[in-house]
């Protein structure tokens, strides 16, 4: 069953610019608030402040994965091309936040643990998830037919997302069986408010990124359809 192509009149409207400003402004505000109001801690000093960017980035990663899952499933169900484009957009943005989470984890880990990397449960499972995102994007890059690309990435995206909790669980078990958790997973309640504010702000940024990326995907796909129609009609 062929997927429904968008009609020329479903050319998407521009993602609003003011939302971009609002979301970035919110992040600036949330970060400033958190940095200024959070207390120093023992001999780690202000290192915990990195958590205000690292933890929200991690949460956004999981959220993006969830979006990929939902719209992949929806595409397989309704075969609407736009669902595939939205899933792919969420995957690209998710990969960005995933990479950011890893970098921030390492930047925090170097002074905290003395090394750039430990096979800590969360860093390791985040790394595996990053590879799942990369695999999804690579599949899209190596498949040319639009409909096949959509079907295959939807299947891969859905199955990859199902694996996310399993990977997370198994890496956590793997670590905790032989060593007590070394990462200070639970933050002091004093930090919670700042964390939530930063998470909401980053969510706004992610929403903007995904919407903009989706808009671009639809424009590019619309151009492809025009090219196809021209090629067929010109015969």
């Amino acid at each position, binding site marked *: 069953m062929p997927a429904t192509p968008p009609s020329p009149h479903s050319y998407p409207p521009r993602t609003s610019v003011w939302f971009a400003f609002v979301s970035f402004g919110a992040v600036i505000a949330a970060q400033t608030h958190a940095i200024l109001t959070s207390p120093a801690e023992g001999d780690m000093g202000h290192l915990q402040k990195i958590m205000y960017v690292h933890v929200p980035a991690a949460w956004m990663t999981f959220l993006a994965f969830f979006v990929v899952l939902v719209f992949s499933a929806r595409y397989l169900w309704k075969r609407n091309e736009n669902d595939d484009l939205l899933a792919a957009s969420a995957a690209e943005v998710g990969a960005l936040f995933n990479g950011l989470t890893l970098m921030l984890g390492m930047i925090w880990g170097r002074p905290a643990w003395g090394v750039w990397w430990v096979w800590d449960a969360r860093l390791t499972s985040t790394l595996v998830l990053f590879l799942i995102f990369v695999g999804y994007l690579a599949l899209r890059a190596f498949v040319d037919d639009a409909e096949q690309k959509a*079907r295959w990435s939807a299947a891969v995206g859905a199955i990859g997302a199902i694996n996310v909790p399993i990977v997370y669980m198994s890496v956590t078990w793997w670590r905790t069986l032989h060593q007590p958790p070394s990462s200070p997973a639970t933050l002091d309640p004093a930090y919670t408010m700042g964390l939530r504010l930063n998470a909401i702000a980053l969510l706004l940024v992610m929403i903007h990124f995904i919407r903009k990326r989706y808009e671009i995907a639809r424009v590019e796909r619309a151009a492809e359809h025009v090219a196809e129609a021209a090629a067929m009609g010109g015969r």
Partner: protein
Amino acid sequence: MAWRDDWRRVRAIARKDLTTELRAKVGFNSVVALGVTILILLGLALGPDAQALRNAAVGAVWLATLFSGVLAFNRSFQVEIETGALEQLLQYPGPRWTIFAGKLLGNLLFVTLMVAIVVAAGIVLFGVRIPAGWPALLGVLALGIVGLVLLGTFYASMASRSRAREVLLPLLLFPMLVPVLLAATTASKALLGADLMHEAGAWIRLLAVYDVVFFIATFIAFEHVIEA
């Protein structure tokens, strides 16, 4: 009655795959040879201390299995792609899942035989001491192989038809197999070492859940993936 027809289709596809492989025994032999070669290289890279090797044995066997398994999975779709038989197969009446099931059966047998040989080589090369409770180890191996073959066959059905199959299949497959790798190696190590903390049970349950979840998921997804 429809069940019996479906099952016949499954067996036919599996038999076709296996006889093609057995006649071209070169295929099976070279995949096994690769697995053993990887084991040898791992032994050289991680040894020569006997205790270090014994500790590394489980991981080495699983890695050798994964890397040579990838070849087996891509090959299982190779013949159809080269001869264009996949389109013909799709035109025959009958549910699609039988194609997947047939491929799965063929790959299960292939990989099980391969693993048997690689494990034997691993026991010898890495000086593994077999404990009294070794049947449990077979159980872990079996569950791990099922997970490997399920996902390997599924991803190969796509990767083998894409532009970069050699890199795409491992890239897609390996991150998905992390739970299998962790569960199989941790449980095996525990069982080899008398499992004082009774860890193996939890990991075996994880493997079983994993296999069930992806058995269902891949069969459902295959319907969408196999259209030419």
